[in-house]
């Protein structure tokens, strides 16, 4: 069971992506808990996660979160903007799994 956290600014655009990712995970037989949180709630929700993905518009959080989370062994990355834009759940889940695998 992997726990994936998506962060965006107001938590609006990511919720749709979360659903798409869940569908994709199910198809591929991946067991995953995927949640979307707005920027302000990011801190409370990153404990015990396997990977944190940022929406492109909150790219500016990348360095700060990397500093905080990478020592805990949690990889942080920005979602490929085209995949984000096209709400490509499959591609984003692939990106998340890659990150978990390589950590």
């Amino acid at each position, binding site marked *: 069971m992997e726990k994936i956290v998506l962060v965006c*600014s107001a938590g609006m*655009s990511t919720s749709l992506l979360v659903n798409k990712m869940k569908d994709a995970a199910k198809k591929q037989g991946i067991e995953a808990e995927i949640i979307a949180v707005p920027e302000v709630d990011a801190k409370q929700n990153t404990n015990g996660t396997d990977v944190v993905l940022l*929406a492109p*518009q909150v790219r*500016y959080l990348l360095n700060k979160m990397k500093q905080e989370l990478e020592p805990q062994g949690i990889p942080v990355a920005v979602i490929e*903007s085209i995949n*984000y*834009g*096209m709400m490509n759940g499959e591609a984003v889940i692939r990106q998340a799994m890659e990150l978990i695998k390589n950590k």
Partner: protein
Amino acid sequence: MKAVEQIYQALIMLEQKVNRAVSANEISLAINVDRANVSRYLNRLYEEKKIAKLEGRPVLFHSDKSEPQQISAIDGDSSLDRIAAIQSSMQTPIQQAKAAILYPPKGIHTLILGETGVGKSMFAELMYQFAKESGAVRENAPFIRFNCADYAENSQLLVSQIFGVKKGAYTGADKDREGLISKADGGFLFLDEVHRLSPQGQEMLFTFIDKGLFRPLGDTEKTLSAEVRIIAATTEQPQSYLLNTFTRRIPMLIELPNLKARDLTERYYLIELFIKQESRRIGKSIYAEKNSIIAFLLYDCPNNIGQLKSDIQLTCAKSFVNYKAKKADSILITSSDLPQHVRKGMMQIQEHRDSIEFLLKSKSPTIKFSLNQEQSYEEVNDIQLNEDFYDIIERKLESLKNSGMKNEEISYAINLDIEAHFKKYLGDIPNRMQSKDLSKLINSEIMTAAEEVLKFAEQRLQRKYDEKIYIGLALHLHGFVERIKKGVKIYHPKLNMIRVDYPEGFMAAMEAAKILDGTFNIHTPLDEIGYIAMFLSPKPVEISRHEKSCVGILVMMHGNSTASSMAEVCNAMIGVNHAIALDMPISMNPKVMYELAKEKVIQLDTGRGVLLLVDMGSLTSFGQMLQEETGIMVKTIEMTSTPMVIDACRKAVLSRDIHYIYDSLRTPVVHHVSEGSQEQTGKTGIIITACFTGEGASERLKHILEESLRTENIEIVPLNIMNKREFINKVEQLREKHKILAIASTIDIEIDEIPFITAAQVLAGSGIDKIKDILETEGNYQKIAKSLNKHIKLDSERLVENLRDVLAAMEHRLGLYIKEEVKIGIVLHMCFLLDKLKAGGKETFFEELQDFVKQYSKELAIVRSCLEGLGAQYEVRIGEHEEAYICRMLLSNGDILQEIV
């Protein structure tokens, strides 16, 4: 030697030395004798006919008593030639006039044609002058002037005036009277408005012209003869029926050009001539603000030179009154002295900018029309004027306001001043003026400060400033520091525009002002920062054009108030008064409406065209005619609705070009595109390559791009830039059917919203990468827009395009650089936001909103103004919290701000 003899010798000596007639003052200086005495002896010599005198100011004397110009007049130095030399359009008439006078044996009669006020009587007098100068008539030959219109109601009286009358010829002819034709014997008879002669009078005139014989009215026996040269004049069109007989019977026809047919150089000469005449009359030099001269050069002057002259006289009189009333140092013509219809001339500057610039480029903002003939006009010291610059702006504002000029016009006039100021310092600084020359004028403290400001700005803005800008800024600061130390207020009428349009420059100027504050122990006001920003921004001179460069929006509808209400709603929603309305009540004649529309279109055009938003009927056909008649790019959208007006206006305010707006409105709105029909309906992308010939470098660039891009979807079009305007037209044409992704060229070209890539960049490969990025981005947005269709209810393709516009505007106005991938995220965010709001969703709460608002009030205001139109278009309300989210997203991702944090 007697004193009078000594003066005579001195005159001859001096005359030989300077090779012209000399004044009493010059002789006085040369032989060190009191001027009053010299003058007295000279006049005595003149009375004794030992020397000749030339009337004028000053009076000049020469030793040769005989007429010195008698021979030279025929070819070269006559009064007619002097006109021809300056007024090229007068060359043919003058050649004709000379031929008419000199034609053997006794010259030929002449008919002068021309509109009212072109100077027909003046020309006739010049012909008379020339006849005397060339010896064709004797020195005391008569010149009789008669206006046939004066007696037009009484044809007998008219004829009798010209040819004389025998007692009893008609009731009231109580004695024999000599006609003007007899009085003019041996000289000239000038008959103005000759077409007013009765048929009988005409016949008599033609008989005289043919045979040199005439008969006084009522006299059947006596046939008189006279040697008279007739110069007839008329305002009738040469082809007119009335003139038919005249043009057949009078051998020489001279047509004088109207003022419109004369070029600006000639018109300037006339203006100069008339102002100098006034200056001589007053006995003082007259100064004129450049703007006033521009107004005189460009205003519509239907009654030609006559009107120009009287308008100038009127203006000079007004300036003279001001000079007296205010006890000023000199007589200065300012725009407030101009009659309203003359002042309107300033509005024409846009169309004549180039020729005016060429004509007046060497003139300072104040032109002197000197009383002294030798230095016809000289410029007032430039540096001194720099100090006056603020005063000029301020005084201008006051005087224009008082003169009842409209705000819009004032802004225009002031703009010209600011432009002139910057042109002067950035455009026209002569190369020979090196910094070391400047150091004589400006103290080193200011020079150093200017240097520091530019050094700072160079680093900050990644831009190089050349010597010209350095000198310009130093001169400007010199004036500024003096003024602020005196505690005088500084005012910048375009402060907000600068702040919004040149955010980077403005921010840099703000910091640079700290250098000044420290050095001079002052507090630099915001208005001054605006001026400094103009120096630091690219192409500061073009600011005024840039500010106004929005497509004009004109709403025209049938009905008493339909158009006005639409425009009102639109303007209220967008917060800018950009949409202009013309109502067409059903009773109004389309012709009247057309004229109104024409006026508005001319008024609204800022060089980027005008979009007509109309409903139906005759209004739909105006666009084409207006474009042909005015030369202004005009496009028409029919069946306009209020949302369309809002959309058009919003895009115009974002300074989108007319084709873009036109296309976006014309595309039918399809709300739900079904999955299957997702074919690319948009324009195909093209890349333009350009060079001077359109064959050499541009073909080569095309080749390189084709090789390296290897894409079939993109067409590459090579063009030539021999003529910049043609080139831009061509590009605009291409834009109608295609999306121009980039222009690559050997020559720097900047067309809004089209990325420019230099040939060097293409060759080095970086340009190709840039184009690849552009293509990729375009492709990505297309894919995103299509896939979004499934998830949101709004028309996603249009929405994405709209949001990209808004985002670009926000980025630009906030002075940020945002990475493309981040922009995709922001666009997505806004897509979902609008979709949510449209579906009635609630605003998302932004924590600590108050603190954020406090800290970023300025940025939030910019974001809000960009979003306003969007909200209006989609009929949703974007709240404070949502604005804050968007604002933070922009600021946090913007590169400039990130560096500071």
